[in-house]
């Protein structure tokens, strides 16, 4: 699984949520799964709707969520999370971590075959590692692997990873999909047929990709955990949200992620109750507004705090999420053990906001309704990515509330790729609304450490705080859970006080699955983790070949 990927637009996440699962027991699966169980049977197909097409199916280059959805079914990592969010073996049968935490030894599963029949061995792991750290390969996932000093393969089924220094997030980083050496070693990864015709070890084999239309996967009958029940996985690309919903209404699609309004209101009809099951669980991530701290106006903590006071997070939860999510207070979601419940929360208080802004010398000196300082009015752009309704609405609400304290905000919507490449990476923004989809290990080093501000790195707001830097390093060197917890609680406190981000909310994932699919067991990780065990009883199968 990825370390930290920017939380893609809700529309990108419409696909099956195999990659990002979620926690918290009491809220899981808000609705009971309907219909009797029926006999497990092979066959049928599931049609999953996605707004965006995949771009690149080379696992270490797949950075959009459509590609990640497909990669998640075609490939395996060495480890994965089970439904209770504990790390378990995937391609690795077991592993050992040395006393000092510097060495992880993986013992690989024997008898696993690539979809073309070639055996999977430790050489594939070595190859994947080499490509991950190869500066010529433009992968966004190299960060965790650069901590490795050496990777040795004493035999075909053993991998020994030696870290430069203790690295607590190390083990979970091996959820990264492993690529076949025998097919790729002579290929240029940036320009290979493999990117449109992947061959992996996973439960589904790649079958066909009709650009912009659909991607078809077929069950891998020799899968090492057993043949998946559902024969075909069809990923349909439907660019328009409204069309997608109509397809759901006509049973053209079997699974899609819902928007809060769709979940709370549009699917409350008899048709949906009869034909679909809805699920709800918290996402492991949060949505925020980040300031470009190279902009002198935002370096003043009082200004950032004032803006936090000027915004009503409750209003955003009600208006944007219809209550299907919770307020964010810092860099960890409430489900994380690193979450500190006792931090500053910034309740809605426009008077206090104005007061703080006045302290920072932002006052309306000419009576035009906008604050100014040195002859310039307080005006900035909120950059958001296209296609994410929740963020667009959030931006509109903020725009309105800021207007009431005298700050003029403009909204600019940019498509995801351009958004990342031209604006985020190059720091060409004033403020930005984004989300982080987090790994289960809480280490937030990449987002907050002051060394991570180079182009393409994740501290693109250029935040710098010495105490935080120290704590971040300490956190990832510490293996003891209680000690780590204390460190992260302090980190949470600092960031809540400093407000380099406005932490808005932790949204819920709201998938909808056709009722003919059985075997879905909502768990802390979500619903996608046991996808290979989903089935349709013979008499209810819809797509027969």
């Amino acid at each position, binding site marked *: 699984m990825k370390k930290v990927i920017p939380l893609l637009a809700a529309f990108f996440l419409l696909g099956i949520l195999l990659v990002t699962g979620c926690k918290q027991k009491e809220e899981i699966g808000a609705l009971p799964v309907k219909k009797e169980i029926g006999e497990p049977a092979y066959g049928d197909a599931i*049609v999953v709707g996605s707004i965006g097409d995949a771009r690149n199916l080379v696992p270490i280059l797949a950075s959009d969520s459509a590609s990640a959805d497909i990669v998640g079914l075609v490939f395996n990592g060495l480890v994965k999370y089970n439904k209770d969010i504990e790390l378990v073996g995937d391609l690795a049968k077991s592993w050992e971590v040395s006393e000092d935490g510097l060495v992880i030894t993986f013992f690989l599963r024997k008898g696993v075959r690539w979809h073309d029949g070639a055996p999977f061995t430790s050489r594939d792991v070595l190859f994947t590692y080499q490509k991950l750290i190869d500066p010529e390969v433009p992968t966004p996932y190299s960060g965790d692997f650069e901590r490795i000093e050496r990777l040795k393969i004493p035999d075909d089924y053993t991998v020994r990873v030696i870290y430069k220094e203790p690295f607590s997030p190390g083990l979970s980083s091996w959820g990264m999909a492993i690529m076949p050496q025998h097919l790729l070693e002579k290929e240029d990864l940036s320009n290979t047929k493999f*990117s449109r015709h992947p061959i992996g070890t996973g439960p589904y084999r790649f079958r066909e990709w009709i650009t912009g239309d659909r991607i078809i996967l077929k069950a891998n009958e020799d899968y090492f955990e057993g043949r998946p029940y559902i024969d075909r996985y*069809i990923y349909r690309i439907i660019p328009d949200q409204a*069309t997608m919903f109509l397809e759901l209404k006509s049973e053209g699609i079997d699974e899609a992620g819902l928007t809060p309004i769709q979940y709370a209101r549009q699917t409350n009809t008899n048709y949906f109750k009869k034909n679909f099951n809805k699920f709800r669980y918290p996402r492991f991530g949060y949505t925020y507004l980040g300031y470009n701290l190279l902009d002198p106006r935002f370096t003043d903590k009082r200004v950032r705090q004032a803006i936090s006071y000027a915004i009503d997070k409750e209003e955003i939860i009600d208006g944007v999420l219809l209550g299907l999510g919770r307020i964010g207070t810092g860099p960890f979601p409430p489900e994380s053990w690193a979450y500190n419940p006792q931090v500053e929360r910034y309740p809605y208080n426009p008077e206090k906001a104005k007061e703080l802004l006045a302290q920072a010398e932002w006052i309306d000196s000419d009576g035009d309704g906008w604050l100014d300082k040195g002859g310039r009015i307080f005006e900035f*752009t909120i*950059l958001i990515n296209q296609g994410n309704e929740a963020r667009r609405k959030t931006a509109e609400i903020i725009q309105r509330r800021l207007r009431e304290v005298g700050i003029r905000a403009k909204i600019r919507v940019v498509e995801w*790729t351009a958004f990342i490449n031209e604006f985020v990476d190059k720091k*060409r923004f004033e403020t930005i609304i984004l989300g982080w989809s987090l790994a289960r290990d809480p280490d937030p080093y990449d987002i907050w450490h002051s060394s991570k501000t180079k182009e393409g790195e994740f501290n693109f707001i250029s935040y710098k705080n010495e105490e935080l830097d120290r704590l971040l390093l300490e956190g990832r060197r510490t293996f003891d859970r209680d000690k780590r917890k204390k460190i992260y609680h302090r980190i949470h406190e600092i960031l809540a006080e400093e407000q380099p981000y406005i932490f808005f909310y932790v949204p819920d994932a709201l998938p909808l699955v056709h009722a003919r699919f059985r075997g879905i067991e909502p768990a802390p990780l979500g619903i996608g983790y046991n996808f290979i065990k989903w089935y349709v009883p013979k008499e209810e199968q819809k797509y027969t070949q």
Partner: protein
Amino acid sequence: MLRYLTRRLLQMIPLLIGITIISFAVIHLAPGEPTDLVTDLQPKVSAQAAERLRHLYGLDRPLHIQYLDWLKRLVKLDMGRSFLDNRLVSVKILERLPVTITINVLSLLLIIIVALPIGIVSATRQYSLFDKASTVFVFLGFATPTFWFALLLMILFGIKLGWLPISGLRSLSAASFSFGGRLLDMARHLILPVFVSAFGGLAGFSRYMRSNMLEVIHQDYIRTARAKGLSERAVIYKHALRNALLPIVTILGLSVPALIGGSVIFESIFAIPGMGRLFYESVMARDYPVIMGGLVIGAILTLLGNLIADITYAYVDPRIRYK
């Protein structure tokens, strides 16, 4: 005929050059920083970014050299590779083109079948009830926002009545159908997009036909024909119609760009992986090689449309000799 064709093709060359220059110019609007976002805060970062961009596009060389380079490659149909997935631009466009052309040709046919009779009858019965009703009808088509109309039709035919598929081009089990079955399946998927696209274009053609017809009817030779005592039917359908139809051919050619442009909308709403959708996606992602390719190909399609129209015209109109 051959000489006429050669001459027409030769005439296209300056146009083609103009097209490439404009496409090239549009793209070079881009690397200049977006105006409203603060870039001068961090000279180092912007400088680096700018440099990388320059390197990527070869922008450090003089503009005319860049253009000539690009043109040279374009002639060899080498339009570079997409920034998004590193695939050849020509391949990406080619795989999308047939769908878009099919839909547009079908929609043109439908327009002609419906719009011409409307125009003719409107003209022969100017200010009649039919004239007025049909005027409102065709303008309704023009005035309805395409995507809204499409959604309404999808709800009506896809959900309420359940007669037609909502989106896409083929059913999921289409692969197992016979050839005829597949064709039928595709046809069912195309009904709504073609209808939506044609409905918007009715107005232009029918109104044009109407005014042409009116003009012809008032000409001397028609009056003469009437005076000779020919029946009204014979006058209209034998003499007037033929002459009024001719200019329509030209309009056909001219309507190509609007159709291609419009495909962006209905391909998005109907989830059809065509050229319009590709162009939109690349524009939004600033995938410059694909944008340039799309502009050039779109314009060339128009040129071809015009050429076909001209040839047809020359073929039908006895007054034109191929010189």
